[in-house]
Protein backbone atom coordinates (compact mmCIF):
# COMPACT_ATOMS: atom_id res chain seq x y z
CA UNK A 1 0.00 0.00 0.00
CA UNK A 2 2.88 2.29 0.83
CA UNK A 3 4.14 2.66 -2.71
CA UNK A 4 0.74 3.40 -4.18
CA UNK A 5 -0.38 6.90 -4.92
CA UNK A 6 -2.90 8.32 -2.53
CA UNK A 7 -6.18 8.97 -4.33
CA UNK A 8 -7.32 11.60 -1.85
CA UNK A 9 -4.97 12.78 0.88
CA UNK A 10 -5.91 14.00 4.32
CA UNK A 11 -5.93 17.63 3.24
CA UNK A 12 -8.53 16.83 0.58
CA UNK A 13 -6.25 16.99 -2.46
CA UNK A 14 -6.11 14.44 -5.24
CA UNK A 15 -3.01 13.04 -6.88
CA UNK A 16 -2.88 15.82 -9.47
CA UNK A 17 -3.50 18.58 -6.94
CA UNK A 18 -7.20 18.99 -7.56
CA UNK A 19 -9.94 19.17 -4.99
CA UNK A 20 -12.66 16.53 -4.85
CA UNK A 21 -15.18 18.33 -7.06
CA UNK A 22 -12.77 20.16 -9.28
CA UNK A 23 -12.81 19.52 -13.03
CA UNK A 24 -9.65 19.51 -15.12
CA UNK A 25 -8.75 22.26 -17.60
CA UNK A 26 -11.06 22.22 -20.59
CA UNK A 27 -10.17 23.59 -23.99
CA UNK A 28 -12.52 23.47 -26.92
CA UNK A 29 -11.47 24.19 -30.47
CA UNK A 30 -14.12 24.27 -33.16
CA UNK A 31 -11.99 25.33 -36.10
CA UNK A 32 -12.71 23.41 -39.31
CA UNK A 33 -10.45 20.55 -40.33
CA UNK A 34 -10.09 19.22 -43.84
CA UNK A 35 -13.33 18.53 -45.63
CA UNK A 36 -15.35 17.74 -42.50
CA UNK A 37 -18.71 19.46 -42.19
CA UNK A 38 -18.08 19.99 -38.51
CA UNK A 39 -15.15 19.25 -36.29
CA UNK A 40 -14.11 19.82 -32.72
CA UNK A 41 -11.10 19.12 -30.59
CA UNK A 42 -11.57 18.99 -26.87
CA UNK A 43 -9.14 18.45 -24.04
CA UNK A 44 -10.01 17.51 -20.49
CA UNK A 45 -6.67 17.82 -18.72
CA UNK A 46 -4.40 15.41 -20.55
CA UNK A 47 -7.18 13.64 -22.45
CA UNK A 48 -7.48 14.96 -25.97
CA UNK A 49 -10.08 13.90 -28.50
CA UNK A 50 -10.78 15.16 -31.99
CA UNK A 51 -14.10 14.51 -33.69
CA UNK A 52 -15.03 15.10 -37.33
CA UNK A 53 -18.63 14.98 -38.47
CA UNK A 54 -19.61 14.37 -42.08
CA UNK A 55 -23.15 14.61 -43.26
CA UNK A 56 -25.99 14.24 -43.51
CA UNK A 57 -24.90 12.71 -46.78
CA UNK A 58 -25.82 9.89 -49.13
CA UNK A 59 -25.58 6.63 -47.22
CA UNK A 60 -22.67 4.48 -48.28
CA UNK A 61 -24.21 1.32 -46.86
CA UNK A 62 -27.34 1.03 -48.96
CA UNK A 63 -28.67 -1.92 -46.96
CA UNK A 64 -28.71 -0.01 -43.68
CA UNK A 65 -30.48 3.12 -44.86
CA UNK A 66 -33.76 3.94 -43.20
CA UNK A 67 -36.58 5.43 -45.22
CA UNK A 68 -37.79 7.73 -42.46
CA UNK A 69 -34.62 8.98 -40.78
CA UNK A 70 -30.86 9.28 -41.02
CA UNK A 71 -28.46 6.64 -39.79
CA UNK A 72 -25.78 7.58 -37.28
CA UNK A 73 -22.44 5.95 -37.91
CA UNK A 74 -19.80 6.28 -35.22
CA UNK A 75 -16.23 5.15 -35.75
CA UNK A 76 -13.57 5.41 -33.07
CA UNK A 77 -9.87 5.43 -33.72
CA UNK A 78 -7.49 5.31 -30.77
CA UNK A 79 -4.04 6.51 -31.71
CA UNK A 80 -1.33 4.03 -30.66
CA UNK A 81 0.68 6.87 -29.10
CA UNK A 82 -2.22 8.02 -26.94
CA UNK A 83 -1.36 5.89 -23.90
CA UNK A 84 1.69 5.20 -21.80
CA UNK A 85 2.39 1.80 -23.24
CA UNK A 86 2.31 1.97 -26.99
CA UNK A 87 -0.25 -0.44 -28.29
CA UNK A 88 -1.99 -0.69 -31.60
CA UNK A 89 -5.64 -1.56 -31.39
CA UNK A 90 -7.29 -2.65 -34.57
CA UNK A 91 -10.71 -1.42 -35.58
CA UNK A 92 -12.44 -4.61 -34.59
CA UNK A 93 -11.28 -4.35 -30.99
CA UNK A 94 -14.16 -5.04 -28.60
CA UNK A 95 -13.32 -2.05 -26.37
CA UNK A 96 -13.40 0.31 -29.33
CA UNK A 97 -16.63 -1.11 -30.69
CA UNK A 98 -18.22 -0.72 -27.28
CA UNK A 99 -17.06 2.87 -27.01
CA UNK A 100 -18.50 3.60 -30.47
CA UNK A 101 -21.77 1.91 -29.55
CA UNK A 102 -22.12 4.01 -26.37
CA UNK A 103 -21.49 7.21 -28.30
CA UNK A 104 -24.02 6.18 -30.91
CA UNK A 105 -26.71 5.36 -28.37
CA UNK A 106 -26.02 8.64 -26.57
CA UNK A 107 -26.72 10.70 -29.66
CA UNK A 108 -29.54 8.72 -31.20
CA UNK A 109 -32.25 10.34 -29.05
CA UNK A 110 -30.67 13.80 -29.40
CA UNK A 111 -29.98 14.22 -33.11
CA UNK A 112 -33.14 15.02 -35.07
CA UNK A 113 -32.53 12.26 -37.59
CA UNK A 114 -36.13 12.30 -38.81
CA UNK A 115 -35.36 15.45 -40.81
CA UNK A 116 -32.94 13.58 -43.05
CA UNK A 117 -34.49 10.40 -44.44
CA UNK A 118 -32.25 7.94 -46.29
CA UNK A 119 -29.08 9.78 -45.27
CA UNK A 120 -26.17 8.99 -43.06
CA UNK A 121 -24.33 11.08 -40.48
CA UNK A 122 -20.76 9.97 -39.85
CA UNK A 123 -19.06 10.76 -36.56
CA UNK A 124 -15.35 9.97 -36.60
CA UNK A 125 -13.71 10.06 -33.19
CA UNK A 126 -9.93 10.27 -32.97
CA UNK A 127 -8.40 9.80 -29.54
CA UNK A 128 -5.08 11.61 -29.46
CA UNK A 129 -4.19 11.39 -25.79
CA UNK A 130 -5.86 9.51 -23.01
CA UNK A 131 -5.75 10.16 -19.33
CA UNK A 132 -9.15 9.03 -18.13
CA UNK A 133 -12.59 10.24 -19.12
CA UNK A 134 -12.33 8.95 -22.68
CA UNK A 135 -16.06 8.52 -23.17
CA UNK A 136 -16.78 11.88 -21.58
CA UNK A 137 -14.35 13.69 -23.87
CA UNK A 138 -15.61 11.84 -26.95
CA UNK A 139 -19.23 12.72 -26.25
CA UNK A 140 -18.49 16.37 -25.52
CA UNK A 141 -16.37 16.71 -28.65
CA UNK A 142 -18.99 14.92 -30.77
CA UNK A 143 -21.66 17.35 -29.52
CA UNK A 144 -19.59 20.34 -30.52
CA UNK A 145 -18.72 18.83 -33.89
CA UNK A 146 -22.42 18.15 -34.59
CA UNK A 147 -23.23 21.75 -33.66
CA UNK A 148 -20.47 22.91 -35.99
CA UNK A 149 -21.90 20.84 -38.83
CA UNK A 150 -25.30 22.51 -38.40
CA UNK A 151 -27.03 19.25 -37.59
CA UNK A 152 -30.20 19.82 -35.54
CA UNK A 153 -29.91 18.63 -31.95
CA UNK A 154 -32.54 18.75 -29.25
CA UNK A 155 -29.92 20.01 -26.85
CA UNK A 156 -26.20 19.97 -26.24
CA UNK A 157 -25.08 16.73 -24.62
CA UNK A 158 -22.68 17.16 -21.74
CA UNK A 159 -20.87 14.16 -20.32
CA UNK A 160 -18.80 13.86 -17.16
CA UNK A 161 -17.28 11.04 -15.13
CA UNK A 162 -17.59 10.64 -11.40
CA UNK A 163 -16.18 8.17 -8.91
CA UNK A 164 -16.24 7.36 -5.23
CA UNK A 165 -13.16 6.99 -3.07
CA UNK A 166 -14.32 5.12 0.07
CA UNK A 167 -17.16 7.52 0.92
CA UNK A 168 -16.08 10.69 -0.81
CA UNK A 169 -17.34 11.28 -4.34
CA UNK A 170 -15.07 12.99 -6.88
CA UNK A 171 -15.37 14.24 -10.45
CA UNK A 172 -13.50 14.01 -13.76
CA UNK A 173 -11.16 11.13 -13.00
CA UNK A 174 -7.71 10.59 -14.43
CA UNK A 175 -6.49 7.16 -15.57
CA UNK A 176 -4.81 6.67 -12.22
CA UNK A 177 -8.04 7.26 -10.37
CA UNK A 178 -10.14 5.28 -12.84
CA UNK A 179 -7.94 2.24 -12.28
CA UNK A 180 -8.43 2.43 -8.53
CA UNK A 181 -11.95 3.49 -7.71
CA UNK A 182 -15.44 2.69 -8.97
CA UNK A 183 -16.62 5.24 -11.49
CA UNK A 184 -19.45 6.02 -13.86
CA UNK A 185 -19.96 8.27 -16.89
CA UNK A 186 -23.15 10.28 -17.24
CA UNK A 187 -24.33 12.22 -20.30
CA UNK A 188 -26.99 14.85 -19.66
CA UNK A 189 -29.12 17.13 -21.81
CA UNK A 190 -28.86 20.15 -19.53
CA UNK A 191 -32.02 21.96 -20.55
CA UNK A 192 -34.43 19.27 -19.48
CA UNK A 193 -32.02 17.38 -17.27
CA UNK A 194 -32.71 14.24 -19.28
CA UNK A 195 -29.96 11.68 -19.03
CA UNK A 196 -29.04 9.98 -22.30
CA UNK A 197 -26.25 7.77 -21.02
CA UNK A 198 -25.20 6.22 -17.75
CA UNK A 199 -22.47 3.65 -17.89
CA UNK A 200 -20.47 1.91 -15.21
CA UNK A 201 -18.02 -0.92 -15.59
CA UNK A 202 -17.10 -1.32 -11.94
CA UNK A 203 -19.09 -2.25 -8.87
CA UNK A 204 -20.44 0.58 -6.75
CA UNK A 205 -22.46 0.42 -3.56
CA UNK A 206 -26.06 1.32 -4.24
CA UNK A 207 -26.11 3.89 -1.42
CA UNK A 208 -23.25 5.79 -3.03
CA UNK A 209 -24.79 5.75 -6.48
CA UNK A 210 -27.41 8.42 -5.80
CA UNK A 211 -24.85 10.94 -4.51
CA UNK A 212 -22.42 10.53 -7.31
CA UNK A 213 -25.16 10.52 -9.94
CA UNK A 214 -26.56 13.83 -8.71
CA UNK A 215 -23.09 15.27 -8.50
CA UNK A 216 -22.22 14.37 -12.07
CA UNK A 217 -25.50 15.87 -13.29
CA UNK A 218 -24.54 19.15 -11.58
CA UNK A 219 -21.06 19.02 -13.05
CA UNK A 220 -22.58 18.55 -16.50
CA UNK A 221 -24.24 21.95 -16.08
CA UNK A 222 -20.83 23.49 -15.59
CA UNK A 223 -19.50 21.80 -18.71
CA UNK A 224 -22.63 22.98 -20.51
CA UNK A 225 -21.71 26.61 -19.81
CA UNK A 226 -18.28 26.04 -21.31
CA UNK A 227 -19.65 24.28 -24.39
CA UNK A 228 -22.21 26.98 -24.91
CA UNK A 229 -19.54 29.63 -24.69
CA UNK A 230 -17.40 27.84 -27.27
CA UNK A 231 -20.36 27.34 -29.62
CA UNK A 232 -21.41 30.99 -29.33
CA UNK A 233 -17.87 32.20 -29.95
CA UNK A 234 -17.57 30.07 -33.07
CA UNK A 235 -21.00 31.06 -34.42
CA UNK A 236 -20.34 34.73 -33.72
CA UNK A 237 -17.11 34.51 -35.63
CA UNK A 238 -18.70 32.94 -38.70
CA UNK A 239 -21.66 35.32 -38.70
CA UNK A 240 -19.44 38.37 -38.27
CA UNK A 241 -17.17 37.33 -41.13
CA UNK A 242 -20.23 37.09 -43.38
CA UNK A 243 -21.73 40.34 -42.13
CA UNK A 244 -18.68 42.51 -42.70
CA UNK A 245 -18.60 41.44 -46.26
CA UNK A 246 -22.27 41.74 -47.04
CA UNK A 247 -22.19 45.36 -45.99
CA UNK A 248 -19.28 46.09 -48.27
CA UNK A 249 -21.01 44.41 -51.20
CA UNK A 250 -24.01 46.64 -50.69
CA UNK A 251 -21.81 49.68 -50.94
CA UNK A 252 -19.89 48.65 -54.00
CA UNK A 253 -21.87 46.32 -56.16
CA UNK A 254 -25.36 45.81 -57.43
CA UNK A 255 -24.77 42.14 -58.04
CA UNK A 256 -26.67 41.00 -54.98
CA UNK A 257 -30.05 39.48 -55.50
CA UNK A 258 -32.75 41.95 -54.58
CA UNK A 259 -34.21 39.83 -51.80
CA UNK A 260 -30.88 39.39 -50.09
CA UNK A 261 -30.15 43.05 -50.36
CA UNK A 262 -33.51 43.96 -48.86
CA UNK A 263 -32.93 41.69 -45.91
CA UNK A 264 -29.63 43.26 -45.17
CA UNK A 265 -30.98 46.76 -45.34
CA UNK A 266 -33.50 46.06 -42.67
Amino acid sequence: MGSRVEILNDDGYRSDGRRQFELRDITMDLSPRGTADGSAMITHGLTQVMVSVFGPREAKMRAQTLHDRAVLNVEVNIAPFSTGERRKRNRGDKRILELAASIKSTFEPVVQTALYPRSQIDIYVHVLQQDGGLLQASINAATLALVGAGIPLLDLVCAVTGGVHSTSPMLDLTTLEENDIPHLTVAVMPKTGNVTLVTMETRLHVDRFGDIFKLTCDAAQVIHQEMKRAAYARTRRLVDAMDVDSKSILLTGDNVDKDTAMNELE
Partner: protein
Amino acid sequence: MITFASFAAPPDDLYGHGHRVAHPIDPADDRDMDIDFDDEEFVSGSKLTVPGETLTSSHAFMRGHGTYVDNEQVIASVAGTVERVNKLISVRAARSRYNPEVGDLVVGRIAEVQPKRWKVDAGGRQDAVLMLSSVNLPGGVQRRKLESDELQMRTFFEEGDLLVAEVQAFFADGAMSLHTRSLKYGKLRNGQLVIVPPALIRRLKSHFTSLPCGVDLILGLNGYIWVSKHVKDSDREGEDGFDAEAVYSNRNDDIDCATRTAIARVTNIIRALAAHWQPLTDAVLLEAYEWAVEQDCDVKDLLLDDVAAALVASLGGQH
Protein backbone atom coordinates in the same frame (compact mmCIF):
# COMPACT_ATOMS: atom_id res chain seq x y z
CA MET B 1 -9.61 28.86 -38.73
CA ILE B 2 -7.71 28.58 -41.96
CA THR B 3 -7.55 25.05 -43.27
CA PHE B 4 -5.40 23.54 -45.89
CA ALA B 5 -5.70 19.84 -45.87
CA SER B 6 -2.00 19.13 -45.60
CA PHE B 7 -1.39 20.64 -42.20
CA ALA B 8 -3.38 20.94 -39.03
CA ALA B 9 -5.35 24.06 -38.33
CA PRO B 10 -4.08 26.29 -35.55
CA PRO B 11 -6.41 26.43 -32.58
CA ASP B 12 -9.22 28.92 -32.69
CA ASP B 13 -7.67 31.93 -31.01
CA LEU B 14 -11.05 33.11 -29.82
CA TYR B 15 -11.26 30.06 -27.68
CA GLY B 16 -7.70 28.90 -27.52
CA HIS B 17 -7.14 29.30 -23.83
CA GLY B 18 -8.54 26.75 -21.54
CA HIS B 19 -9.66 28.17 -18.32
CA ARG B 20 -9.85 26.25 -15.17
CA VAL B 21 -13.32 25.49 -13.98
CA ALA B 22 -13.98 24.70 -10.39
CA HIS B 23 -17.11 22.89 -9.47
CA PRO B 24 -19.56 23.91 -8.16
CA ILE B 25 -19.76 27.38 -9.67
CA ASP B 26 -22.60 29.80 -9.59
CA PRO B 27 -25.06 28.96 -12.35
CA ALA B 28 -26.10 32.62 -12.47
CA ASP B 29 -23.84 33.48 -15.42
CA ASP B 30 -26.56 32.47 -17.79
CA ARG B 31 -26.97 35.99 -19.05
CA ASP B 32 -27.42 37.25 -22.60
CA MET B 33 -29.00 33.99 -23.63
CA ASP B 34 -32.66 34.79 -23.29
CA ILE B 35 -34.10 36.61 -26.22
CA ASP B 36 -36.70 39.23 -25.68
CA PHE B 37 -38.77 39.41 -28.80
CA ASP B 38 -40.30 42.77 -27.94
CA ASP B 39 -36.84 44.23 -28.03
CA GLU B 40 -36.37 46.74 -30.85
CA GLU B 41 -32.77 45.70 -31.18
CA PHE B 42 -33.72 42.17 -32.10
CA VAL B 43 -35.04 43.25 -35.45
CA SER B 44 -31.82 44.93 -36.54
CA GLY B 45 -28.95 42.95 -35.04
CA SER B 46 -28.28 39.32 -35.73
CA LYS B 47 -29.14 37.35 -32.62
CA LEU B 48 -27.25 34.14 -32.21
CA THR B 49 -28.32 30.95 -30.61
CA VAL B 50 -27.08 27.42 -29.99
CA PRO B 51 -29.05 24.15 -29.68
CA GLY B 52 -31.18 23.91 -26.58
CA GLU B 53 -31.70 27.63 -26.08
CA THR B 54 -35.27 28.75 -25.48
CA LEU B 55 -36.27 31.36 -28.03
CA THR B 56 -39.85 32.20 -27.12
CA SER B 57 -43.19 30.74 -26.15
CA SER B 58 -45.02 28.66 -28.70
CA HIS B 59 -48.31 30.43 -27.97
CA ALA B 60 -47.33 33.68 -29.58
CA PHE B 61 -45.00 32.36 -32.29
CA MET B 62 -44.78 29.61 -34.86
CA ARG B 63 -41.73 27.43 -35.15
CA GLY B 64 -39.71 27.42 -38.36
CA HIS B 65 -36.60 25.60 -39.53
CA GLY B 66 -33.90 25.01 -36.97
CA THR B 67 -36.30 25.00 -34.05
CA TYR B 68 -38.59 22.59 -32.22
CA VAL B 69 -41.37 22.91 -29.71
CA ASP B 70 -41.16 21.33 -26.30
CA ASN B 71 -43.18 22.18 -23.25
CA GLU B 72 -44.87 25.13 -25.00
CA GLN B 73 -41.54 26.73 -25.77
CA VAL B 74 -39.85 27.27 -29.10
CA ILE B 75 -36.31 25.95 -28.74
CA ALA B 76 -33.38 26.29 -31.14
CA SER B 77 -31.90 23.09 -32.55
CA VAL B 78 -28.99 24.49 -34.54
CA ALA B 79 -26.32 27.13 -33.90
CA GLY B 80 -26.81 30.23 -35.99
CA THR B 81 -28.76 33.42 -36.40
CA VAL B 82 -32.35 33.77 -35.24
CA GLU B 83 -34.68 35.07 -37.92
CA ARG B 84 -38.20 36.28 -37.52
CA VAL B 85 -40.79 36.80 -40.21
CA ASN B 86 -43.95 38.09 -38.57
CA LYS B 87 -44.90 35.22 -36.24
CA LEU B 88 -42.52 32.65 -37.66
CA ILE B 89 -39.28 32.04 -35.79
CA SER B 90 -36.51 30.16 -37.50
CA VAL B 91 -32.80 29.66 -36.97
CA ARG B 92 -30.42 29.66 -39.87
CA ALA B 93 -27.38 27.51 -39.18
CA ALA B 94 -24.07 29.34 -39.47
CA ARG B 95 -22.68 26.37 -41.32
CA SER B 96 -24.48 23.41 -42.81
CA ARG B 97 -24.69 21.29 -45.88
CA TYR B 98 -26.42 22.59 -48.98
CA ASN B 99 -30.17 23.10 -48.70
CA PRO B 100 -31.50 22.97 -52.24
CA GLU B 101 -34.26 25.18 -53.61
CA VAL B 102 -36.00 24.87 -56.95
CA GLY B 103 -34.21 26.94 -59.59
CA ASP B 104 -30.81 26.80 -57.91
CA LEU B 105 -27.81 26.36 -60.12
CA VAL B 106 -25.59 23.52 -58.91
CA VAL B 107 -22.39 21.86 -60.00
CA GLY B 108 -22.19 18.14 -59.31
CA ARG B 109 -20.37 14.95 -60.00
CA ILE B 110 -21.93 11.78 -61.36
CA ALA B 111 -21.83 9.18 -58.61
CA GLU B 112 -23.74 6.33 -60.20
CA VAL B 113 -25.49 5.34 -63.39
CA GLN B 114 -28.87 3.67 -62.82
CA PRO B 115 -31.71 2.68 -65.13
CA LYS B 116 -32.99 5.86 -66.80
CA ARG B 117 -31.25 8.08 -64.29
CA TRP B 118 -27.92 9.30 -62.99
CA LYS B 119 -27.15 9.85 -59.34
CA VAL B 120 -25.28 13.08 -58.85
CA ASP B 121 -23.26 14.09 -55.82
CA ALA B 122 -24.11 17.76 -55.39
CA GLY B 123 -23.17 18.32 -51.76
CA GLY B 124 -26.70 17.80 -50.52
CA ARG B 125 -27.90 15.41 -47.86
CA GLN B 126 -28.67 12.81 -50.50
CA ASP B 127 -27.41 12.29 -54.01
CA ALA B 128 -29.41 14.27 -56.55
CA VAL B 129 -31.19 12.53 -59.41
CA LEU B 130 -30.74 13.46 -63.05
CA MET B 131 -33.34 11.67 -65.14
CA LEU B 132 -32.54 10.65 -68.68
CA SER B 133 -35.64 12.61 -69.65
CA SER B 134 -34.22 15.83 -68.19
CA VAL B 135 -31.11 16.03 -70.33
CA ASN B 136 -30.68 17.23 -73.87
CA LEU B 137 -29.71 14.41 -76.18
CA PRO B 138 -27.84 14.61 -79.45
CA GLY B 139 -30.15 15.27 -82.33
CA GLY B 140 -32.28 18.10 -81.07
CA VAL B 141 -34.14 19.51 -78.14
CA GLN B 142 -37.46 17.87 -78.86
CA ARG B 143 -36.12 14.41 -79.64
CA ARG B 144 -37.83 11.38 -78.08
CA LYS B 145 -35.87 9.22 -75.69
CA LEU B 146 -35.36 5.89 -77.35
CA GLU B 147 -34.49 2.58 -75.83
CA SER B 148 -31.09 2.85 -77.47
CA ASP B 149 -30.46 5.99 -75.44
CA GLU B 150 -31.07 4.06 -72.24
CA LEU B 151 -28.48 1.54 -73.28
CA GLN B 152 -25.82 4.13 -73.97
CA MET B 153 -26.28 6.45 -71.01
CA ARG B 154 -22.58 6.21 -70.25
CA THR B 155 -21.80 7.90 -73.56
CA PHE B 156 -23.51 11.01 -72.18
CA PHE B 157 -22.42 10.99 -68.55
CA GLU B 158 -20.11 8.53 -66.87
CA GLU B 159 -19.22 8.06 -63.21
CA GLY B 160 -16.94 10.88 -62.16
CA ASP B 161 -18.06 13.34 -64.83
CA LEU B 162 -18.75 16.88 -63.66
CA LEU B 163 -21.81 18.75 -64.79
CA VAL B 164 -23.69 21.94 -64.19
CA ALA B 165 -27.45 21.71 -63.78
CA GLU B 166 -30.49 23.36 -62.30
CA VAL B 167 -32.66 22.04 -59.48
CA GLN B 168 -35.95 21.11 -61.10
CA ALA B 169 -38.06 19.59 -58.34
CA PHE B 170 -37.97 17.52 -55.21
CA PHE B 171 -38.94 13.94 -54.52
CA ALA B 172 -41.08 13.03 -51.58
CA ASP B 173 -38.06 12.18 -49.42
CA GLY B 174 -36.40 15.53 -50.11
CA ALA B 175 -33.94 14.37 -52.75
CA MET B 176 -33.53 16.86 -55.55
CA SER B 177 -34.15 16.26 -59.21
CA LEU B 178 -31.90 18.10 -61.65
CA HIS B 179 -32.23 19.06 -65.27
CA THR B 180 -29.74 20.17 -67.92
CA ARG B 181 -32.30 21.22 -70.52
CA SER B 182 -30.55 24.40 -71.49
CA LEU B 183 -27.50 25.15 -73.55
CA LYS B 184 -25.89 26.74 -70.52
CA TYR B 185 -25.97 23.43 -68.63
CA GLY B 186 -24.24 20.15 -69.27
CA LYS B 187 -20.92 18.46 -68.94
CA LEU B 188 -17.95 20.45 -67.68
CA ARG B 189 -14.41 20.35 -69.02
CA ASN B 190 -11.34 22.57 -69.47
CA GLY B 191 -11.12 23.49 -65.83
CA GLN B 192 -10.87 22.75 -62.16
CA LEU B 193 -13.36 22.22 -59.34
CA VAL B 194 -13.14 23.96 -55.96
CA ILE B 195 -15.47 23.08 -53.12
CA VAL B 196 -16.33 25.68 -50.51
CA PRO B 197 -19.01 25.79 -47.79
CA PRO B 198 -22.34 26.54 -49.54
CA ALA B 199 -23.13 29.43 -47.17
CA LEU B 200 -20.40 31.44 -48.87
CA ILE B 201 -22.16 31.48 -52.25
CA ARG B 202 -24.71 34.26 -52.42
CA ARG B 203 -27.56 34.29 -54.89
CA LEU B 204 -26.45 36.40 -57.83
CA LYS B 205 -28.11 37.62 -60.98
CA SER B 206 -25.97 35.23 -62.93
CA HIS B 207 -23.87 32.42 -61.59
CA PHE B 208 -21.97 32.18 -64.85
CA THR B 209 -19.33 34.86 -64.85
CA SER B 210 -16.17 35.35 -66.76
CA LEU B 211 -13.17 37.19 -65.40
CA PRO B 212 -11.13 39.35 -67.78
CA CYS B 213 -8.12 37.11 -67.22
CA GLY B 214 -9.55 34.52 -69.58
CA VAL B 215 -11.26 32.43 -66.92
CA ASP B 216 -14.90 31.42 -66.72
CA LEU B 217 -16.49 30.79 -63.36
CA ILE B 218 -19.58 28.82 -62.46
CA LEU B 219 -20.59 29.51 -58.88
CA GLY B 220 -22.81 26.58 -57.93
CA LEU B 221 -25.11 27.40 -55.03
CA ASN B 222 -24.08 24.09 -53.45
CA GLY B 223 -20.60 25.48 -52.91
CA TYR B 224 -19.06 23.68 -55.87
CA ILE B 225 -17.25 26.20 -58.05
CA TRP B 226 -16.07 25.39 -61.55
CA VAL B 227 -13.13 27.44 -62.80
CA SER B 228 -12.38 26.92 -66.45
CA LYS B 229 -10.89 28.32 -69.61
CA HIS B 230 -12.95 31.08 -71.19
CA VAL B 231 -15.14 29.93 -74.05
CA LYS B 232 -16.25 32.55 -76.53
CA ASP B 233 -20.00 32.99 -76.77
CA SER B 234 -19.86 32.44 -80.51
CA ASP B 235 -18.17 29.05 -80.02
CA ARG B 236 -20.67 27.94 -77.47
CA GLU B 237 -23.52 27.77 -79.95
CA GLY B 238 -22.81 25.29 -82.67
CA GLU B 239 -25.14 24.03 -85.36
CA ASP B 240 -28.74 24.37 -84.30
CA GLY B 241 -27.42 25.61 -81.01
CA PHE B 242 -26.52 22.08 -80.13
CA ASP B 243 -23.43 20.16 -81.02
CA ALA B 244 -23.46 16.67 -79.54
CA GLU B 245 -19.77 16.10 -80.06
CA ALA B 246 -18.81 19.16 -78.07
CA VAL B 247 -21.46 18.90 -75.37
CA TYR B 248 -20.71 15.37 -74.25
CA SER B 249 -17.04 15.35 -75.11
CA ASN B 250 -14.59 14.11 -72.52
CA ARG B 251 -11.58 15.73 -74.09
CA ASN B 252 -10.15 19.05 -72.97
CA ASP B 253 -9.32 21.76 -75.48
CA ASP B 254 -5.78 23.03 -75.68
CA ILE B 255 -5.19 25.30 -72.73
CA ASP B 256 -2.20 27.58 -72.90
CA CYS B 257 0.16 28.16 -70.04
CA ALA B 258 -1.11 31.63 -69.13
CA THR B 259 -4.68 30.35 -68.85
CA ARG B 260 -3.58 27.43 -66.70
CA THR B 261 -1.83 29.85 -64.35
CA ALA B 262 -4.89 32.08 -64.25
CA ILE B 263 -7.14 29.11 -63.41
CA ALA B 264 -4.79 27.99 -60.66
CA ARG B 265 -4.59 31.52 -59.28
CA VAL B 266 -8.36 31.90 -59.18
CA THR B 267 -8.83 28.52 -57.45
CA ASN B 268 -6.21 29.37 -54.85
CA ILE B 269 -7.86 32.75 -54.23
CA ILE B 270 -11.18 30.95 -53.72
CA ARG B 271 -9.58 28.53 -51.25
CA ALA B 272 -7.91 31.35 -49.34
CA LEU B 273 -11.09 33.40 -49.13
CA ALA B 274 -13.16 30.38 -48.11
CA ALA B 275 -10.71 29.56 -45.34
CA HIS B 276 -11.36 33.06 -43.98
CA TRP B 277 -15.10 32.59 -44.42
CA GLN B 278 -15.43 35.39 -46.95
CA PRO B 279 -18.58 35.28 -49.09
CA LEU B 280 -17.69 34.81 -52.75
CA THR B 281 -19.11 36.93 -55.54
CA ASP B 282 -17.72 37.76 -58.95
CA ALA B 283 -16.88 41.30 -57.81
CA VAL B 284 -14.91 40.06 -54.81
CA LEU B 285 -13.04 37.48 -56.87
CA LEU B 286 -12.14 40.01 -59.52
CA GLU B 287 -10.82 42.39 -56.92
CA ALA B 288 -8.86 39.62 -55.25
CA TYR B 289 -7.42 38.54 -58.57
CA GLU B 290 -6.25 42.04 -59.33
CA TRP B 291 -4.66 42.23 -55.90
CA ALA B 292 -2.87 38.93 -56.44
CA VAL B 293 -1.50 40.07 -59.79
CA GLU B 294 -0.51 43.45 -58.38
CA GLN B 295 1.37 41.85 -55.49
CA ASP B 296 3.12 39.66 -58.02
CA CYS B 297 2.99 36.72 -55.64
CA ASP B 298 3.46 33.17 -56.75
CA VAL B 299 0.27 31.21 -57.35
CA LYS B 300 1.04 28.66 -54.68
CA ASP B 301 1.95 31.37 -52.15
CA LEU B 302 -1.71 32.41 -52.06
CA LEU B 303 -2.33 29.41 -49.86
CA LEU B 304 0.14 30.60 -47.25
CA ASP B 305 -1.42 31.83 -44.08
CA ASP B 306 -0.01 35.35 -44.10
CA VAL B 307 -0.60 35.98 -47.80
CA ALA B 308 -4.20 34.83 -47.45
CA ALA B 309 -4.66 37.11 -44.45
CA ALA B 310 -3.21 40.04 -46.39
CA LEU B 311 -5.55 39.25 -49.27
CA VAL B 312 -8.58 39.30 -47.01
CA ALA B 313 -7.38 42.50 -45.34
CA SER B 314 -6.94 44.18 -48.71
CA LEU B 315 -10.53 43.37 -49.62
CA GLY B 316 -11.82 44.68 -46.32
CA GLY B 317 -9.64 47.78 -46.44
CA GLN B 318 -11.05 49.12 -49.68
CA HIS B 319 -14.57 49.52 -48.47
